[in-house]
């Protein structure tokens, strides 16, 4: 059982607070670290990996400090977000070098390459690899010493759907084997598909924690705003406000449209086309006006 404990950790750079008093415990299984770009995910992962000192607070792995403790890397495997990785080596040479630095040999490297299914391209220079191949070789280098904790920073960035699925399968397997796997992402669907447990970071703060259903509910239960244009805006407005799924409607003359605020997402999306049809109104535009991830996350912070 490997448990990573983050205890009242803050990190600031000059006057900018990147991570603000975060406390969380990451246990075995797959945990998703979710948050918009610039939320402080990378800063937090860097502190978890021992590459950045917390300004205050502590990060420990089973009671051992992570910062300035090289021996901790016997238990941690790291897949960094950055691309650079000794491009002049072949995939095999790279993974073998990583194995040697752990005091292991070519056998361990070969096993790791087989796990990520990269044996077919192991003798090619890394410089010739696609994004997905690089990601898999990075995974192999992180798995070479069979670590109990795996940290991955935005591992799905730039991968095509097939590569994404392969990597998800692999991470799921790692979690099933009882490893502690933590990956960061700014895409809710990615996290939802893979993680057993989600930690949400917004603007450096720990916004939510729990299983994905709870987080999902928090996200979908928030008021949704829509911009609607139709053949008869006022008649549509009157019909919509009669239903409890709609909490407010504004007639926007400048836009020539309705601004609708819905409180029950599922009910409203079913109601709108039905009401329009029943009243013989044609819907011209239905567009969500606050679907940006930022607004979803800022709602979570307020919740």
């Amino acid at each position, binding site marked *: 059982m490997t448990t990573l404990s983050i205890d009242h950790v803050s990190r600031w750079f000059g006057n900018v607070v*990147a991570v603000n008093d975060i406390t969380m415990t990451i246990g075995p299984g797959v945990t998703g670290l979710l948050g918009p*770009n*610039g939320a*402080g*995910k*990378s*800063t937090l992962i*860097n502190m978890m*990996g*021992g*590459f*950045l*000192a917390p300004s205050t607070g502590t990060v420990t792995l089973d009671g051992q400090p992570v910062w*300035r403790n*090289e*021996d*901790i*890397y*016997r238990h*941690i495997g*790291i897949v*960094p*977000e*950055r691309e*650079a*990785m*000794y491009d*002049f*080596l072949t995939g095999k040479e790279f993974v073998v*070098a*990583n194995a*040697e*630095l*752990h*005091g292991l040999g070519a056998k361990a490297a070969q096993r790791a390459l087989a796990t990520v299914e990269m044996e077919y391209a192991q003798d090619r220079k890394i410089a010739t690899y696609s994004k997905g191949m690089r990601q898999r070789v990075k995974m192999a*280098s992180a798995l070479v010493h069979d670590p109990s904790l795996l940290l991955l920073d935005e591992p799905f960035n730039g991968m095509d759907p097939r590569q994404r699925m392969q990597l998800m399968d692999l991470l799921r397997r790692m979690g099933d084997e009882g490893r502690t796997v933590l990956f960061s992402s700014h895409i809710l669907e990615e996290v939802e598909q893979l993680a057993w447990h989600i930690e949400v970071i917004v603007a450096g703060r720990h916004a939510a924690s729990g299983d994905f259903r709870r987080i999902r509910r928090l996200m979908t239960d928030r008021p949704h705003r829509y911009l609607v244009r139709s053949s008869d805006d006022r008649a549509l407005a009157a019909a919509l406000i009669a239903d409890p799924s709609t909490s407010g409607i504004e007639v926007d003359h400048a836009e020539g449209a309705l601004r609708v605020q819905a409180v029950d997402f599922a009910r409203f999306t079913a109601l709108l086309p039905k009401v329009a049809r029943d009243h013989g109104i044609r819907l011209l535009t239905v567009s969500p006006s606050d679907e940006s991830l930022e607004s979803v996350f800022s709602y979570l912070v307020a919740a």
Partner: protein
Amino acid sequence: MYDPTVARLTYRALLGRRRALILGALPLLLLVIAVAVRALTGADDQTAADVLGGFALATMVPIIGVIAGTGAIGPEIDDGSVVYLLSKPVKRPTIIFTKLTVAIAVTMVFSALPTLLAGLILNGNGQQVAVAYTVAALVASIAYAALFLLLGTVSRHAVVFGLVYALVWEALFGTLVPGARTLSVQQWSLAVAQDIAGGDLVTSDVGLTTATVLLVLVTVLATWYAGQKLRTLTLAGEE
């Protein structure tokens, strides 16, 4: 203290095609100059000392030192690939010491060896001039590699600072301004060379004892400090 894997990665990075070309260019130029001077003026001890002192030791050795010293670690820190070394149970001082060893070896091969060859071409090692400057280049290689490795660890603009030091401080002030000479790796290595060469063909402003103490001090301190810097190296996030 020495990790063969770190050494192998460092050698391959340093001797990659482009960097090897840059490393080879100056020694080649030195040899061309040596052949041309010998052909034009014949064997002359003073000329040999002038070429080896003015170009080889004052310009070539520090520049090779900058390329090898900063190149042994700077690019890895810059592009973030150093994370693959740092995320291993390998002591940071071991990483630094290994990289220093590689940087010294590369600087020696690309600066001391050509200096010896150029000296032999210029005057066939008359009055021990070739050997004296070769020893100076060997000694300077150690100090330069340590200094510039430290620079590569602390600054993202290590090559620029290194070249400014090598060209402005060592080559210009080191030869023109008397006070600056005392604090110049070039002068310290010349003090060692002075002891070997005959007559007053090789002279230094610094005594041999002072020079030796300073050389050892600079090398040890720079290496120790680079190890400390690497222990607390912060890998900048994307944010």
